[in-house]
């Protein structure tokens, strides 16, 4: 490398010497005839080349010094200065100095002094230099220059629609977008609606355009610079949508409609046209064919991203907390619950009343209520991290007691969950972790002989998944032995010996009550000491447990819990005049039951699989007769798939859960109640309990046969 560099510098020197001798020839000509324009031009060009090359090869002093001389000759060229003998003399001196600088670059200090003297006399002769001195434009704005980042985060909206023939200039738009993403947090939405079908497509043309929402500390110039080569041909709109400093009193940003109008995706007229409707604005606009789904997505992302940086800013501004007793919070949640119910009634009333004014009021109330509800629920949310850290000590103590080496890893400690859920989650988690270490992780020497690291690992993680939080407890221990569990379960009569079961279903058997006693620990590689306790706790939190395991590799137990206990996503069903709600998370599918029971047995054939069902009408002793076509709602828990026969499935429904009074505490199969929009009460079904009833019924039914 060094050799090459020497060669590079040597070439530069030779070229400079050549330029200098050309320069001197021209200077002689100028001396003879001060009006020789050609000579002036070639002198200017030579100085310009020397300046440029000096800059390129690290001879900054050459570059700096030559700059002023070049400026003088630019003035001469423009006939603002008449060259005289003193200028020519100074120019010759400059040539000598440049030669010296290039030849012996190590004597910069002395050369610098000489250069300053020369420049001083030049300025004395031509005071015009100082005025004419222009600020040099850099080759590529910003490229390579140190850009001092501003300390604030700003949000930009960038619309980039390249010219269709962009590929023909060797430009890859994806690289530009990637460069853009390098500036900060970036969401890119591609608009692909202009892509013609395959027959009409020219693969050498670019049909796609992009919307980018960028949160960055960089200024607008830095963004524009990325597109410097294409800005003449492409459609490029960069707008600052949050300047990062103006005070905001809430994190709220513009409404969807405003954004779309601002971006000219729709006209204000379009907006007025659809605003009379009742659905969400985005859906309506898409339905009406006024806008592409991508544009809506872009606008929604914009809302979200601006909200985020504003929230960040607000957080910085307001760091104080208020302590509120949880009693007051519960009261608030209750009130919001009432409000949701009243609001549902209002919406319903508005729907059946032909009054547009009422309709729009109802809509506004609906929006506000939803926001109020979400915010209130949010107040009850706490990060799960504190619970996690509690387990560190447990892991340490347990592993010391048992002579095992265990490391605990936690992830997602900042995931937020309802306070009640967190409080009630502690014990089951302790149980699961104890199990991991006690039965899952092998003693260090065993692990070594198995080729595993001496130290076992227990990982505890929390992640969001839709309206649920997934808590995973993973170990890299011995894993579960499906065969052994199955055999034991069959022996206990928990499953039929010939039942077809997936691994997941087999593993779930260890959660069955009474399944685990000390005697099988060795048989089934440990695991399962009172895991039914965990199951019960999960049930009471409306959670689900699933187990994945590989023998010899380890086990993962996944607890899926609702974010909050106060609200339920349910499926509303009707039997006679009665309404019920089933937790949507348990529902698998709905099928029709035509013409009543086949052969008098409560069994349905759903795509070749046998599904036992119960008639809720009979279960709850509801009078009247069933319609000709009934519906079976198929629900499942870890072990079984069961159908509930109902009259009608009404649809999804988000409801606030009300606990039943003390009088109804012992009620089997009902976990709570909710109030519907029209004021009627719907009971919330306890799916696990009902499944158990079905299973018991099935077993006794079989016994009778």
């Amino acid at each position, binding site marked *: 490398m060094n050799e*090459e560099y020497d060669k590079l510098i040597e070439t530069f020197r030779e070229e400079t010497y050549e330029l200098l001798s050309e320069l001197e020839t021209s200077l002689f000509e100028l001396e003879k005839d001060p009006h020789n324009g050609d000579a002036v031009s070639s002198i200017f060009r030579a100085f310009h080349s020397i300046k440029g090359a000096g800059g*390129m090869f690290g001879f900054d002093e050459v570059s700096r010094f030559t700059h002023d001389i070049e400026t003088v000759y630019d003035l001469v060229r423009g006939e603002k200065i008449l060259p005289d003998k003193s200028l020519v003399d100074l120019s010759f001196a400059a040539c000598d100095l440049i030669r010296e600088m290039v030849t012996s670059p190590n004597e910069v200090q002395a050369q610098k002094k000489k250069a300053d003297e020369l420049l001083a006399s030049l300025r004395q002769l031509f005071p015009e230099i100082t005025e004419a001195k222009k600020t040099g434009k850099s080759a590529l704005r910003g490229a390579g220059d140190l850009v001092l980042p501003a300390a604030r985060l700003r949000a930009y909206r960038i619309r980039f629609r390249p010219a269709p023939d962009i590929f023909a200039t060797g430009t890859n738009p994806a690289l530009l977008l990637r460069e853009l993403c390098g500036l900060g947090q970036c969401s890119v939405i591609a608009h692909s609606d202009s892509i013609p079908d395959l027959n009409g497509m020219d693969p050498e043309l670019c049909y796609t355009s992009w919307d980018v929402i960028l949160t960055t500390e960089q200024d607008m110039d830095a963004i524009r610079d990325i597109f410097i*080569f294409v800005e003449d041909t492409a459609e490029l709109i960069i707008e600052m949508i949050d300047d990062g400093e103006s005070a905001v009193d809430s994190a709220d940003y513009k409404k969807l409609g405003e954004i779309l109008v601002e971006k000219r995706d729709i006209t204000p007229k379009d907006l007025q046209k659809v605003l009379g409707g009742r659905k969400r604005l985005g859906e309506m606009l898409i339905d009406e064919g006024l806008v592409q789904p991508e544009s809506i997505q872009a606008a929604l992302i914009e809302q979200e991203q601006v909200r985020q940086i504003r929230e960040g800013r607000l957080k910085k501004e307001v760091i104080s907390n208020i302590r509120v007793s949880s009693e007051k919070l519960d009261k608030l949640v209750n009130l919001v619950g009432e409000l949701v119910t009243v609001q549902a009634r209002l919406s319903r009333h508005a729907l059946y009343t032909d009054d547009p004014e009422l309709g729009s009021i109802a809509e506004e109330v609906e929006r506000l209520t939803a926001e109020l509800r979400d915010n209130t629920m949010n107040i009850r949310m706490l990060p799960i991290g504190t619970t996690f850290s509690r387990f560190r000590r447990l892991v340490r103590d347990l592993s010391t007691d048992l002579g095992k080496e265990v490391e605990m890893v936690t992830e997602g400690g900042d995931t937020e969950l309802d306070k009640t859920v967190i409080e009630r989650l502690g014990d089951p988690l302790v149980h699961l972790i104890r199990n991991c270490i006690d039965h899952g992780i092998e003693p260090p020497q065993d692990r070594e002989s198995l080729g595993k690291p001496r130290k076992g690992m227990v990982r505890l993680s929390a992640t969001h998944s839709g309206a649920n939080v997934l808590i995973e407890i993973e170990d890299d221990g011995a894993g579960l032995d499906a065969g052994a569990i199955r055999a034991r379960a069959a022996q206990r009569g928990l499953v039929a010996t010939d039942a077809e079961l997936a691994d997941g279903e087999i593993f779930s058997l260890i959660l069955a009550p009474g399944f685990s006693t000390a005697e099988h620990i060795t048989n089934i590689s440990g695991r399962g000491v009172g895991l039914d306790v965990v199951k019960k706790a999960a049930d009471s939190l409306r959670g689900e447990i699933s187990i994945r395991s590989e023998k010899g590799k380890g086990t993962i137990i996944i607890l899926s819990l609702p974010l909050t206990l106060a609200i339920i996503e349910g499926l509303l069903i009707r039997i006679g005049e009665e309404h019920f709600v089933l937790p949507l998370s348990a529902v698998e599918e709905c099928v029709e039951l035509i013409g009543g029971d086949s052969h008098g047995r409560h069994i349905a054939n759903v795509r070749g699989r046998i599904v036992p069902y119960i008639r809720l009408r009979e279960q709850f002793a509801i009078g009247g007769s069933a319609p000709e076509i009934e519906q079976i709602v198929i629900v499942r828990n870890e072990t079984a798939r069961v159908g509930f026969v109902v009259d009608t499935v009404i649809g999804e429904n988000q409801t606030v859960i009300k606990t039943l009074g003390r009088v109804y505490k012992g009620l089997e199969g009902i976990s709570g109640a909710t109030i519907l929009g029209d004021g009627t009460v719907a009971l919330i079904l306890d799916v696990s309990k009902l499944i158990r009833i079905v299973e018991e019924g099935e077993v006794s039914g079989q016994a009778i046969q």
Partner: protein
Amino acid sequence: MKKTIMTVDDSASVRLMVKFTLAELGFEIIEAVDGRDALRKIEKKPVHMLITDINMPELDGISLVKKVREIPACKFIPIIMLTTESQEEKKREGKKAGATGWIVKPFRPDQLVAVVRKVMG
């Protein structure tokens, strides 16, 4: 396989500077002294990127860009022109001929690196 970049310039020092700078990024550099030389070499063996001066004695940069774009293997390669401050018009002309972008001379090695990264990824 190393990607190849061709530097076309009648100044040996510019070619060397490009070579010296880009070889460090892991590119193989092929030199050409003017447009005609460049075209002959590219026709024999296509390159992945071209950096060309504009004013050259035999076949100027803009004509070279046009000719290179006619070679199927080079239809979509990035082409960067070396221009001087005063050549605004040339930039437009070059873009029209099919060039990807430009660097204004004189440029520092880091500016060259930034542009190559920009167009080559």
